[in-house]
């Protein structure tokens, strides 16, 4: 086991799960959670569900684009302010 990596229990892994999925933990904490998930059949489904949920949320919302007339209005207002599209 690398220095700084400790065994963690299920409550600890669950507490850190969102931070883990968001990659907001330190390198050591990331490794601890990853190691726990590799070994724990109880926590892994939580991880898989959370991951799929975040992927669906991200993909669905990224498909939403701005209506074309908004861009025209903004560019027109910028033009009034002196901006010229190169």
């Amino acid at each position, binding site marked *: 086991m690398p220095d700084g990596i400790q065994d963690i229990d299920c409550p600890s892994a669950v507490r850190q799960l969102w931070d883990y999925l968001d990659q907001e933990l330190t390198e050591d904490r990331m490794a601890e959670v990853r190691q726990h998930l590799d070994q724990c059949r109880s926590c892994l489904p939580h991880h898989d*569900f959370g991951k799929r949920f*975040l992927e669906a949320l991200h993909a*669905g919302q990224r498909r939403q684009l701005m209506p074309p007339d908004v861009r025209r209005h903004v560019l027109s207002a910028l033009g009034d302010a002196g901006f010229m599209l190169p």
Partner: protein
Amino acid sequence: MADHVEGRTTKDASFARDALPFMDDVYRFALSLTRDPSDAQDIVQETYLRAYRSWHTFEPGSDCRRWLFTICRNAFLRSRESKRFEVEVDDADTEAIAAARQHRAMMDDGTDERLATVDLGPALDRALADLEEPFRSTVLLVDVEDQSYEAAAGILGVPIGTIRSRLFRARRQLQARLRSFARDAGLPLPVSDEAQGNA
């Protein structure tokens, strides 16, 4: 005079290259704040006008999208007479544990498997639209626009701990909506490998 024109041309070129490509992202963020397409358009326009006038303060090479989100959020607050959304700082760890309890309930009643068989997009769209501020804008910045907790905290002007607790609570609320959606829609349970004799 020639220098002035050349300077403006350079400014316009860099603004067009670095700022304009993020208009869709700024619009999504503005819409998450206002929930009204017309208001969102006004906020986007105000954001870009302010960004253009302040372009000399933008540091080349830094994160332009983050800079625009910050201007957008400030434009929104001004449009609401500088009314700030303040929420209590909850314990993010408690929220994370509550989320796990919800995961468990969703797995126990089969919601998890039901949801695996369908496109979650439309249900998530509705659930996100129903989220209250400031939770909606926090989810949009982190989960959709890929901002870090630190960046989202800077854009929204709150501590990182507040971002975490808002985010975790919002995700729990979204998942609760998904659970209701699966139940109300009567989504069928998929046939498992075991049931098919493939275990």
